[in-house]
Each structure stands twice: as structure tokens, then as C-alpha cells.
């Protein structure tokens, strides 16, 4: 199993393994686990091996190597890759190959990473269980009867299954943190604008952000270092220097740091007792590392989910208008003659292409968003949600004037059984209870493994920091992992 990027780098620099050997091992592991886990939508052995050969050649010729040289990395199938399909796990884009690379994919190539394949996800990143994928659900490596979470379920499951040490996910309302928590790995959602969205197929543009997934804070910091930074092709990209994240990880002394514990998150109904206990025991860990613990309140947190479920579908309804069958993606070939007659061939083609190409959850969100933006309703819904979003941001500003970090759960429960919530959208949306706040406020947050419950399912805690304070998250996260072994727990072997 390849479960540490640091180790993969060391093996190569010590001459104990080549990139080709490492890549072969990763692909073998994918082959062994794909049937049971279904973490990938596309893997290209030949392509990965030829990249690995090129890295080995560079090393032999003593040419300069990138910081991820020879490290296999999986990429969520919502990020454009010019040499692989980019499907968003949707029938709409089943055969779509973009003519260009996403900014983060370019950066992975520049860092000499081995892009091993594309990972499964909820269709267009809409979901919290990877069950809305058109390519079948992904399974949780800790318990194959359970969901890995979502929407980046493939991206976290592939790390948990030991196929690759690192993967890229995206997080619009918790889509990195929740599945990271369900799969017992570490996942970070950066500040909005910290990582370029160019080439990230948009779900909700004002909330989407690309982020790193790995077992440890160290590995997550390594990947973040390679993808963070200003990029002129994304107008919302932040023009701030990228700090040296690795140097934040040298100390585990948290003296002088104030950590706020979210009162609401522990009192709210529906939070699993094991989840609550994991947060409470993490308080002791942070206190022992020297941090001061303060109880804080984010009074508008009860509006997070309703606000999110107006803004995200509104933007989605607009972003997904482009999938109309006219230019690329799925186009209905045989039109229903009645509709063709009543609507005309053009509108009938639109309707039928979209009806066939999109799954139920995507359609639901397009309808909700279209409604929320409609004339006469926009003031009640979309514009009202924008006001609520400002209040939510204000809560965070007030909280961060008292504390350096906020501590709480990632999601109300550990991984739930497949099929449990897929037909109950409201229950599914409540998975986002503690994660959407960071997206609405645009701040960074990290999900850290925090033990197992009685059934052996991973538990997790979440830390949130003010905008652009990824360093603080990584520092506290590394301190936590220096005194706990939760990130070193592995699922029992399965599959082959």
C-alpha cells in the first residue's frame, strides 16, 4: 500500500523505488479494489506509466524534479484533463474530453505528479454520498455496505483504499471534508480564491473550491503547496503570496492559540453521540498541546443549510444551462414526435437532451435554482439568501475576533448505509449541517480523522480558520496528529 506521499518521495530519492514501480503498484491496487470500491471513473495505465517513465528519466539525468515527482495523484472527475475524459459522473458528459487542462491539473503536471485517473463523484458534485453518480456509487473501504460520503467520495475512498497517497477533491458545501471524515482521511477546503477554479466544472461558482486529500496533514500540506496561488484566468483568484506550508508543521506547541468550540454544533439534535464524544476528546488533546479553549456561538448557523440550498442551486441552474445538447455532451437523437411537433425541433432537442442527460438530483437542483431566481421570487429567495450569507459571514468575523480557530464536528453522523438517504433529499442535505458555513463565508476548513465508533467507522473533527489562514489549520492539525494516531488507522484489507 502506498499511503504516504512523503514516503513515496523518499523511496525514490533513496533509489529504493522508481516512479514506474510506484505507479505500477498504484494501478495494481486500483485493479484489485475497483470492483469493490468503484472509486475511479477512468484510469489510464499506459498514460500514467509513460509519465512515470519520464520522471524516472529526469531523475537519471539529474534534471530538476517537481515537488510531487513520481507521486501518484487521483483527480476528481470534475476537473478538466485534456488527455482523459471529464464526465462529472454524468451521462450528460459521459463522452466529453475537454481540449484543455484545469489550472490545478497543469500544476500537478508541472510538479511531476503522476495523474493516475479520475475519481467517481456525485453527479456534478451534487450529493453527499456519491450515489448520484451515473457510473454507480462508490463504496466505503471501511465498510462496503456504506457510503464513502460525497460528493468527492471517489477521491477520499481511493486514498482510504490505499491506491494513491494523494487526491484532489472539490468542496462546495462540504464535499471534501464530509467524505474525508467518512473515509478516515485528512481533507482540506482552502479559502475561496486560494486555488484557481479555472477548469473546475462549475457547480456553484461562489462556493466551489479545489482542495487536497491525503492520510496526514503533512501530505495535505504538500499537495496544497503545489496547487495554491494566484491565477489570472480566474477573476476570483486571490492575489496573495503562498506561504511555505511545510514550515508550519515543525512545532506541535499550541500555547497562545485560542480555539473556539461551537456551542450550537454540540447541542443540536441529530448529532450522533460518538461524533459528539470525538469532538469532546479532541478538546482535551488541543488543551494538552497548550491551546486555550473558549466556547463560542455563531448565532445564524441555523440558517446555513437553508441559505446554502438557495444560493448553490441558483448558481447551479445557471452554470448547467450550457449542457443543452447543441455544442457538446449528450444530445437526444430520436425526438419524441409529439414533443417535436408541439415544441418545435430545437426546444424539443433541448428538453429531451437535458431530460436524458441529467439525473434526478441535478434536475431537482436546477428546478429549485430556476425557481429561486425567477422574477417575483428572487427577492424572497435568492436575494434573501444573499442577505443571510452576509450575516453568516459577520458571525464568523465576530467569532474570529475572539479565537484563532473554530473546532466542531464535520458531519452529524459517521458513514451511513448505502441507499439510506438517497431517496430523501432533505435528510441528505442535513449531512451538510456543519460544513456549508465555511463555503458561505469563503474560509478554509480541515477535516481530521478522530478515531472509530463502536461499529469501527471513522469519526472526524473539523477545524475552521479565517480567510487565508490555511497555515493555522495545518499547524493545529499537525499538532493534533502528532499526539493522536487516528490518521494512521487503516481499514481491514478487502477486495482481492
Amino acid at each position, binding site marked *: 500500500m502506498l499511503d504516504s506521499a512523503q514516503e513515496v518521495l523518499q523511496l525514490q530519492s533513496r533509489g529504493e523505488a522508481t516512479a514506474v514501480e510506484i505507479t505500477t503498484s498504484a494501478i495494481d491496487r486500483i485493479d484489485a479494489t475497483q470492483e469493490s470500491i468503484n472509486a475511479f471513473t477512468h484510469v489510464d495505465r499506459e498514460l500514467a506509466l509513460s509519465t512515470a517513465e519520464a520522471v524516472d528519466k529526469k531523475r537519471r539525468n539529474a534534471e530538476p524534479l517537481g515537488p510531487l515527482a513520481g507521486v501518484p495523484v487521483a483527480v476528481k472527475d470534475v476537473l478538466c484533463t485534456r488527455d482523459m475524459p471529464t464526465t462529472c459522473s454524468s451521462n450528460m458528459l459521459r463522452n466529453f474530453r475537454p481540449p484543455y487542462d484545469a489550472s490545478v491539473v497543469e500544476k500537478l503536471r508541472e510538479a511531476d505528479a503522476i495523474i493516475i485517473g479520475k475519481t467517481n463523484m456525485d453527479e456534478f458534485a451534487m450529493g453527499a454520498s456519491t450515489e448520484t453518480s451515473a457510473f454507480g456509487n462508490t463504496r466505503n473501504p471501511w465498510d462496503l455496505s456504506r457510503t464513502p460520503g460525497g460528493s468527492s467520495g471517489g477521491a477520499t475512498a481511493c486514498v482510504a483504499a490505499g491506491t494513491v497517497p494523494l487526491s484532489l477533491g472539490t468542496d462546495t458545501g462540504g464535499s471534501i471534508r464530509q467524505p474525508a471524515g467518512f473515509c478516515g482521511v485528512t481533507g482540506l477546503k482552502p479559502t475561496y480564491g486560494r486555488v484557481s477554479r479555472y477548469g473546475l466544472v*462549475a457547480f456553484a461558482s461562489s462556493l466551489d473550491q479545489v482542495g487536497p486529500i491525503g492520510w496526514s496533514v503533512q501530505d495535505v500540506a504538500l499537495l496544497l503547496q503545489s496547487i495554491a496561488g494566484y491565477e489570472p484566468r480566474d*477573476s476570483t483568484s486571490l492575489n496573495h503570496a503562498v506561504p511555505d506550508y511545510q514550515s508550519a508543521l515543525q512545532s506541535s506547541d499550541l500555547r497562545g492559540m485560542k480555539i473556539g468550540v461551537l456551542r450550537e454544533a454540540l447541542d443540536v439534535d441529530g448529532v450522533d453521540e460518538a461524533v459528539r464524544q470525538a469532538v469532546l476528546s479532541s478538546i482535551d488533546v488541543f488543551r494538552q498541546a497548550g491551546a486555550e479553549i473558549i466556547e463560542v456561538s455563531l448565532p445564524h448557523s441555523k440558517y446555513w443549510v437553508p441559505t446554502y440550498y438557495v444560493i448553490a442551486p441558483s448558481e447551479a441552474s445557471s452554470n448547467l444551462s450550457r449542457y443543452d445538447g447543441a455544442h457538446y455532451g449528450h444530445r437526444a437523437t430520436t425526438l419524441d414526435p409529439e414533443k417535436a411537433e408541439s415544441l418545435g425541433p430545437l426546444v424539443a432537442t433541448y428538453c429531451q437532451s437535458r431530460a436524458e442527460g441529467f439525473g434526478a438530483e441535478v434536475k431537482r437542483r436546477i428546478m429549485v435554482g430556476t425557481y429561486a431566481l425567477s422574477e417575483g421570487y428572487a427577492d424572497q429567495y435568492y436575494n434573501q439568501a444573499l442577505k443571510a450569507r452576509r450575516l453568516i459571514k459577520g458571525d464568523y468575523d465576530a467569532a474570529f475576533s475572539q479565537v484563532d480557530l473554530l473546532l466542531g464536528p464535520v458531519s452529524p453522523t459517521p458513514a451511513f448505509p448505502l441507499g439510506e438517504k438517497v431517496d430523501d433529499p432533505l435528510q441528505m442535505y442535513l449531512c451538510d449541517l456543519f460544513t456549508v458555513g465555511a463555503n458561505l463565508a469563503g474560509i478554509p476548513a480541515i477535516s481530521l480523522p478522530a478515531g472509530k465508533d463502536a461499529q469501527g467507522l471513522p469519526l472526524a473533527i473539523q477545524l475552521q480558520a479565517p480567510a487565508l489562514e490555511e497555515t493555522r489549520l495545518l499547524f493545529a492539525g499537525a499538532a493534533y496528529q502528532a499526539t493522536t494516531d487516528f490518521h494512521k488507522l487503516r481499514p481491514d484489507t478487502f477486495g482481492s
Partner: protein
Amino acid sequence: MTLSDGYPTETIIGLEVHVQLRTQTKLFCSCSTRFGAPPNTQVCPVCLGLPGALPVMNEHAIDLAIRAGLAIDCSIPPMTKWDRKQYFYPDLPKGYQISQFDLPICADGFLDITNEAEPETPRRIGIIRAHLEEDAGKSMHDEAAGRNDSRIDLNRCGTPLLEIVSHPDLRSAKEAKEYLSELKLRMTHLGVSDCEMQEGSLRVDANVNLHIDVDGKKIATPIAEIKNMNSFRAVEHAIEHEVDRQYDVWEETGKTIKDEAKTTRGWDDTKGKTFLQREKEESADYRYFPDPDLLPIRIPQDRVDEAKANLGELPAELCQRLQTQYGIKLYDANVIVNQGRELIEYFETAATKSGDGKRTSSWIQQDVMRTLNENQLGIEDFAVSAAQLGDLLERVSRGDLDNARARDVFSHLLKTDHSVEDAIKSLGIESVDSGDIEVLCRELLDANPQVIDDVKSGKQQAVGALIGQAKKKNANANPKQVRETLLQLIAQS
């Protein structure tokens, strides 16, 4: 106005004008905006609306929009933003157009228009707003050979447009044309747009209805929006036709604005008729919302001030100055200003050198512009420089050359790179002493005594034949001088 045998009627017109801004690249990507390239060759992931592509605003378009706004006396608010206007159409690949909804870049301006009959009393036409937006692509519907297919060219997709919306202040088709001419003049003069209707860099939609005065009671007819007019003349004709049509329909049906929603009508240039395109303007819900991919734009006052300082003279001011500075008439000043900056500069240089604005203006309008038109040239490529023309005309004013000889020199200058001085020499032109002219005239009269009799009996034109002969004997003989000398000698005889 009053239609014959009808009630007094007032025509109400508001215009929506799209001008394509003269940027090198598109509004949100770096693709070229050049007109006429093969279909779908000036496109990229951004203007194709591919998944994951993001728009990045073109600053030059903002500068041009500010410039345009200042030219029509708009205010430039300190904050403007981008909104998505959403509708499905195959030439709109994102399913939405990036436009501006509630905070346009230019607001609340006006344009003064004059008509030739009353140049001293301009009419002020209010401008509601001018906003930036990206153009869509072009759909070409090929219904030939029963194929019924449509082709889409996305080259134009993402080209920057400024949509200028007037108040319904225009009262006739003629005024609409005057408004458009003045708008085009300002936009081309300031380099904001080429305003070529044929190439689509200026597009006009006209909202038209009538206020009919029935025994002191005002009745408004339903509003029609007329589209696809491809020249100013077409706009004028379409509105004229629409005015008659609306009056007739009202007489026939009695329908007023309360009975019928706005309709969209096309203009058929060959039939000279407007025709119904969309029955009812469906209350289209574009679901505008701020584009989350683009940041709001702050325009600090100093940026506006700088643009104002660099705006230079507007055409109307320029016309005024040309009249006072060079002593030319309003009509002539207008003709020159309408030709654009380069010709204005040419005129000013030549007129200053010649010291005679009127003569320079008339030469430019006749000889220079004719040659340019014949050869399809711009003034910047013209063989005779402004300094040369000024030099030539200065000699005419001094009496060194008559107009006919000056034209010979001008023709010579067109074909060679001679200076005026050299051209005169190589044409063998020299001024002829008045004594020599007298000798020449006496010889001619001696040889043609009947001319003397003819003139004395009142037929002055009889000297004409002798002027021609004089020219043959001495090409440099000034015809005017020859004529005067001949008449003098006849009178003395």
C-alpha cells in the same frame, strides 16, 4: 404631424443601439474580434462556454465604454457589475449572456440632434443608460434543398457590445435617423466603434408607437419593436412604414396599448414593410443575477476624469471651431468632420498653410475626396500631403496659378513624388507678363476682326473662341486675364 384626413398624431420612438466596441480582443477572453474570418476559427474554451472555463474582463472595453458614455453626457457610476441574462439559444453556448442589469456602466445622458432646416435649434434626446454585454454567435439557417439544418458560427461570441438605450424622445423617422447619425459620428470620431451596420458593428432596434389626439383625448397605440434594419435609410423607412401601419390598424381595430402587449416586428427591405415576428412579447424572465465568476468593477473618479481629459473635442465643438477658425460654412464643416479624424487633421494642416480655409475646404470636398473615392483610398494613403495641397492653394490665392493650372499640378502630384515647386517646373508653368498677353491678344484680334463686330453688337461670348486659341499659342496664358484684355482692347477700338 397630421396624417391626411386623420386625427393629429404624434410619433413616439425610442432606440436601442448596440455598438461593437473597437477592442482587439473579446470581452472575456483573448480571441480576436476581427470581422470576416472563417467560421469558428476565433474561439477558445472561454467564448465557447466549455465546462470549467472562466471569463476575465477586458479592461480596454471598460475604457471604451467610459469614453462612449462621456461622449453622450452620461454619468459613470463608481461601481458597476456583471449579471447573467439567461435564455436558451444555440448561438449562446453558455445558456446565458454576460450583461449588466441594474448597475450599468453609463447612466442618464443625452444627445443633441439638429436637422439641416433648423441648424440653430438642436433637440435634446435623453439617454437612459448604456451597458456592456457580450455578443452572441451567428446562426445561419440553411433551409435550401430541404435540408432544414442550422449552422452556428461562434466567432462573434463574446465580442464586446455597448447597448445605448434612449428615452422615447424621438418624434419622427427623420429624427431617429439624425440621432443615429450623430451617435455614429461621435462613436467613430472617438474611436469607440467602427459603427458599420453592414458588418453588424452597429445594430438598431426601434420601439415605435403613436399618440393619436381624438378630440383632445390622447390615445396610445400598441408598441412595436422593429428589428433587423441594416442601414440608416432602412431605419427611416421602417419607422415611416410602421407609423402608417399602426394608424391604419388603429382605425380598423381601435386597439390601444392597453389591449395588446408589445410585439416584435422585422423589416423587409425589399418589400418595404415591417412584418410580425413574435406575436406577444412573452414576459421573458431572464432570471438576472450577479455573475459569480466576475468581480464588481470599481471605477474611481480619477479614471473618469482622466478619460474626460483625453476625450478631445466632440464633433459639434469641432464643427464650431472649424467655422470660426477657418471661415467655412456649417455645412462644409460638417462634411469634413463627418470624414473622421484623419481628414480633419489633413484639412487643418492644408488650410493653415494655404491661408484660405474656404478654398481648402472646397478642394478637399471636390478634388481630394473624389480621388479617394475613385481609388477606394483613405486619406492616410493619399499621395498628396496636406502640406503640398496647402502650398499649391497658397499659390492659387496669391494669383500665381489659376484653378485650371492648379488642377494640372494636382494631377501631376498624384502621379509623382515631386514637390509643388518641381511639379510646376516640370509642367513648364510660368507666369506670363501682362505685356505679352496684350501682344498676343492684338495678334488674335487682327486675325479675327469679325469677333470685334460680334462683341460690339452685344455677343460677348464671341471672345471665347479666341481664349482657346490663346491657350494654344501660350499654355501659360491665364484665361481670365486673356478675356479681360480682349474685352478691353475691343472696347478701345
